């Protein structure tokens, strides 16, 4: 089973890299980008075949390593 994980900065956490991307897009002539936020994407190939178990394990992985929940949120999709 595959797990796809998105990690994003929480609202209210300053994202200087996202801000720089937003400015660079403007410099390239892409108007109308109100804001840009940068995040991370992970793909895990899991041996687990039970969906419920897989979700619980991946959430644990996110809390313990993949995301820093002081500043980041995560979301998990299973396939």
């Amino acid at each position: 089973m595959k797990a796809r994980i998105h990690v994003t900065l929480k609202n209210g956490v300053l994202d200087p890299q996202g801000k720089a991307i937003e400015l660079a897009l403007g410099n390239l002539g892409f108007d109308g980008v109100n804001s840009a936020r940068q995040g991370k994407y992970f793909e895990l190939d899991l041996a687990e075949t039970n969906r419920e178990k897989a979700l619980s394990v991946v959430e644990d992985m996110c809390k313990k390593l993949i995301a820093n929940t002081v500043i980041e949120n995560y979301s998990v999709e299973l396939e």
Partner: protein
Amino acid sequence: MKSAVIVFPGSNCDRDMAVAIEKVTGVKPTMVWHQEYDFDPVDFIALPGGFSYGDYLRCGAMSARSHIMGEVAKRAKAGVPTLGVCNGFQVLAEAGLLPGALMRNAGLKFVCRDVSLKVVNADTRFTSGYDGGQEITVPVAHHDGNYFADSDTISALEDGGQVAFRYTEDINGSCNGIAGVTNKAGNILGMMPHPERMVDPALGGFDGIHDGRALFESVLAGIG
């Protein structure tokens, strides 16, 4: 006073830290590799600066989960004075031993220069050798020193005397200009500036202004 310096792959201030500790305490610290599970009893643990694990995932994230950190966490929670400088601060924050997180500098620049710090709380085991409100000059060298915590946490840190050092100017976007924080018990300090680079007279480590030496002397005085 016996000390240990924890060494991670990519640590690059471990030798500076060891030299500083030896100069002040007169005893060579034990260098402890991150894959160890245990080390001899010590009075002081230091996590050095550097770019451990190449800053993979997040600065300090991989090191915070290395074998040795289980033992470091156990001892730090039991009250052993524990100092994390720069990457060491990031590791302590990632390990949950200190509140908050260190993010990319707000200006996106690697900041590498001497900065002026205000000693906010001189009543900790790391700062007792300074005067409260004193300004000292210590170098910084980091890309990810932007200290962040939610506003409730920041208020609690300020009210609880956990802010040890504050930048006198905004160099990296840190909340409230925080340069160094302690845990609630006051035995764990994380700071982005490098006091270990200011312990030698050749670098100005004796005049009380350019002074990182007093930090190590404070720890030594607390141990006796």
